[in-house]
C-alpha cells in the first residue's frame, strides 16, 4: 500500500511526503526524513515503518508525545488513510493513493525531477522560518541538496568574524570523514567575483588548468554558488561529483542558486541573533560578578565610642575594581581604599584577592607598612598580566588617635578640619601593589584631632566626566570636600558624591567611585 503524509505545520505552508523505503523519521533534527522545525517537536519525534506491506507509526519517546487521532501513542499503530497525527503543533494527515493530492500542492509532491526540487525549496524556506541555529540551518540545507542534486560531496563555507572563509559544514555520500576541499581558484571565482560556477569537467576547464588538488582526485563535475545578500558575500556552497558518477547541469546550478539565496537571507540574521545572545550571556555573568563583588563590601561599620566612619562605593555599570574595607581589631581600626586597574572579570577577581589579603594580614601587632609589604608580595607573585591595585592602607590607634597610613600608588589622602582642607603630603609615595615583588612601603604617622576628618577616595571622583566630556578633576574634588569640611563623615560622603553626580549629569559612570571618611574623638 502506498500512503502519503500531508504535513501542516503550526506556521507556514503544508507539504506532502510519500512513504517510501523501510522507515522515515519525523523530527526537528535536520537529519530527519520529514523535518518539522518547531521547538515542541523532539529531534527524533516519531517513526514511520513498513512491516509486511503495511505502514506503522511509532512514538520515539518524544517529550510531547505523538497523538494518533487524538490518542497518545503507546506502541506502534498501523496507519490508515484518513488518520490524523499530531507532532508538536504540526498536524500530519495520512492520505491514501486513491485520494487526489490537495490542489494547492500538486506541484510539491513526491519523487523526482522538478517537483522534488520545488518541494526542497519550499522545505528550506519553511525551515528557515523555524527556530534553528546557523549550524542546524546549514546542515539542513546541505542535507536537502544531497536529496535533490545527488552529489558525492558537498560543503558550505562561511566567513568568520575576521572575514576569513572557513568550512561551516560538509558532507559526503560515502560517510567518510575526509575533509571536503574547495579549490582555491573556485573560491576566488565564486566568492571573489560573486559568480556561480558550473564546472562540467574540472580537468579540462581552463579555469582549473593546473589545479593539482582537483586533477589528482579524478575528473570532477562541480556546481557552486555564492551565498550573498545586499550587504556582501557571506560564503559559498559547493557540490561535487566524479564525472563518471554525476554530471551537474544548468538546472542544477539554478536550483543551487535558489537555495543559496534562501540561505543568505537567514544566515545573516541568525548570525546576528546568535552574537547578540552570546553577548547577553556575558553581560549576565558580569552582572552576577558585580553582585558578588558588592556583597564583599562591609554591610555595617564598626561601632566604637567616639568613632564615626562612613563610606560609599558607587559602582559603574560594568564589573569594577574599587574596594574599601574597615575592620576593628581590639583597639585598632584597620582600613583600606583601593582601585584595581581596568574593569574586567580579571580585575574583579584581583579585587577579591586584595580584600582577602587585607583581612589576612591586617590584624594583631602588625604594622601598616608590613601589611602593605606582605599584600604586595602576594599580589606581585607570578603576575604576568601585570594587574595592579593602588591603595591607601591605614590603621587608627583608638587609644591615642594616631594614624599610620601607607600610600601604594593611590590618590592623596585628605584631611578636613573645620573649614579647611589639606592634602596629607608627607606620606612616602609607594608603587601600586602587585608591580614589584620586593617593594618596601613606609607609613606616615599623624594624629587625628577631634575635629579632623580623614578622607580617602579613588580616581572615579577625579575622572568622572560631564556629558560633554570634561573631567571633574582634582580641583573640583577638593572644592566639594572643602564645602562640607566641617560636617560629619556621613554627610560629607553624601555631599561629595552628590557633587560628582551633579557634574556627571546623564553621562553614564565610566568607573567606580569610592569615598571613605573617618572621624575620631577619643572619649576623654
Amino acid at each position: 500500500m502506498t500512503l502519503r503524509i500531508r504535513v501542516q505545520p503550526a506556521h507556514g505552508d503544508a507539504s506532502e511526503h510519500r512513504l517510501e523505503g523501510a522507515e522515515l523519521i519525523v523530527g526537528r533534527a535536520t537529519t530527519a526524513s520529514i523535518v518539522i522545525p518547531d521547538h515542541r517537536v523532539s529531534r527524533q519525534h516519531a517513526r514511520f515503518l513498513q512491516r509486511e506491506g503495511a505502514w506503522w507509526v511509532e512514538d520515539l519517546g518524544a517529550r510531547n508525545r505523538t497523538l494518533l487521532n487524538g490518542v497518545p501513542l503507546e506502541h506502534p499503530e498501523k496507519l490508515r488513510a484518513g488518520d490524523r497525527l499530531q507532532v508538536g503543533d504540526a498536524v500530519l494527515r495520512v492520505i491514501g493513493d486513491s485520494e487526489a493530492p490537495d490542489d494547492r500542492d500538486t506541484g510539491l509532491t513526491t519523487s523526482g525531477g522538478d517537483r522534488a526540487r520545488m518541494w526542497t525549496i519550499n522545505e528550506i524556506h519553511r525551515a528557515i522560518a523555524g527556530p534553528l541555529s546557523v549550524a542546524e540551518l546549514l546542515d539542513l540545507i546541505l542535507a536537502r541538496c544531497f536529496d535533490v542534486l545527488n552529489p558525492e560531496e558537498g560543503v558550505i563555507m562561511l566567513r568568520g568574524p575576521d572575514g576569513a572563509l572557513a568550512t561551516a559544514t560538509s558532507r559526503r555520500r560515502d560517510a567518510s570523514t575526509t575533509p571536503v576541499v574547495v579549490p582555491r581558484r573556485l573560491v576566488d571565482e565564486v566568492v571573489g567575483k560573486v559568480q556561480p560556477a558550473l564546472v562540467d569537467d574540472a580537468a579540462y576547464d581552463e579555469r582549473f588548468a593546473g589545479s593539482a588538488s582537483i586533477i589528482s582526485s579524478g575528473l570532477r563535475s562541480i556546481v557552486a554558488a555564492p551565498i550573498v545578500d545586499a550587504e556582501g558575500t557571506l560564503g559559498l556552497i559547493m557540490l561535487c561529483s566524479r564525472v563518471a558518477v554525476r554530471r551537474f547541469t544548468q538546472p542544477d546550478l539554478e536550483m543551487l542558486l535558489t537555495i543559496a539565496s534562501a540561505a543568505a537571507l537567514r544566515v545573516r540574521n541568525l548570525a546576528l541573533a546568535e552574537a547578540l545572545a552570546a553577548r547577553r550571556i556575558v553581560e549576565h555573568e558580569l552582572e552576577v560578578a558585580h553582585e558578588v563583588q558588592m556583597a564583599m563590601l562591609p554591610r555595617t561599620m564598626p561601632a566604637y565610642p567616639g568613632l564615626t566612619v562612613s563610606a560609599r562605593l558607587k559602582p559603574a555599570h560594568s564589573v569594577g575594581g574599587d574596594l574599601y574595607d574597615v575592620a576593628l581589631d581590639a583597639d585598632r581600626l584597620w582600613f583600606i581604599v583601593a582601585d584595581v586597574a581596568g574593569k574586567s572579570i580579571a580585575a574583579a577577581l584581583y579585587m577579591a584577592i586584595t580584600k582577602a589579603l587585607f583581612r589576612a594580614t591586617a590584624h594583631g601587632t602588625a604594622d601598616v607598612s608590613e601589611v602593605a609589604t606582605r599584600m604586595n608580595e602576594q599580589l606581585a607573585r607570578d603576575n604576568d598580566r601585570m594587574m595592579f591595585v593602588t591603595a591607601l592602607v591605614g590603621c587608627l590607634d583608638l587609644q591615642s588617635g594616631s594614624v599610620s597610613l601607607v600610600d601604594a600608588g593611590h590618590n592623596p589622602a585628605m584631611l578636613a578640619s573645620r573649614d579647611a582642607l589639606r592634602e596629607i603630603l608627607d606620606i612616602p609615595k609607594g608603587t601600586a601593589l602587585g608591580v614589584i615583588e620586593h617593594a618596601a612601603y613606609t607609613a606616615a604617622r599623624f594624629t587625628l584631632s577631634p575635629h579632623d576628618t580623614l578622607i580617602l577616595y579613588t580616581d572615579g571622583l577625579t575622572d568622572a566626566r560631564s556629558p560633554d566630556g570634561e573631567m571633574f578633576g582634582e580641583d573640583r574634588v577638593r572644592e566639594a570636600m572643602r564645602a562640607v569640611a566641617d560636617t560629619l563623615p556621613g554627610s560629607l560622603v553624601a555631599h561629595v558624591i552628590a557633587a560628582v553626580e551633579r557634574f556627571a549629569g546623564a553621562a553614564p559612570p565610566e568607573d567606580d567611585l569610592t569615598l571613605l571618611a573617618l572621624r575620631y574623638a577619643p572619649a576623654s
Partner: protein
Amino acid sequence: MQITEAQQDGVHVIAPSGRIDTTTVGALEARLVPALAVARPRVVVDFSGVEYISSAGLRVLLVAARRVQGTGGGLALCGMGDAVRQVFQLAGFLPLFTIRDTRDAAVKQIAAT
C-alpha cells in the same frame, strides 16, 4: 583614539593620541604587541597627543616594560603632559620607566641600547 607609528634610527615609535582608557587601550596593546615581538625590541611611546591615561593604560605599559626586560632592547616614554605625568606619579610608576621630554631624546636613548 588615533595611533601613528614611525621608524626612527632603528627605533619603533608609537604615538597614540586622545584618551587611553578601558575602551581604547586594546588598540594601543594591538600596536605594542607586534612591536615587542621582535628579538631586541626598541620602542618609544610618544604621549604628546595623549590627554588622559587610565590605570588600564598603565597596565599595558607595565606589560610592555616587562616584555622588554632581558631582551637587550629598550622601552622609553616621552612627550608626557602634566595630566598624563600625574597619573604615572600617583601610581608610583615614574621610577619604573625611562622617560624623556622629547621624542628625539627618547629615540636617542633607546637607539643606544
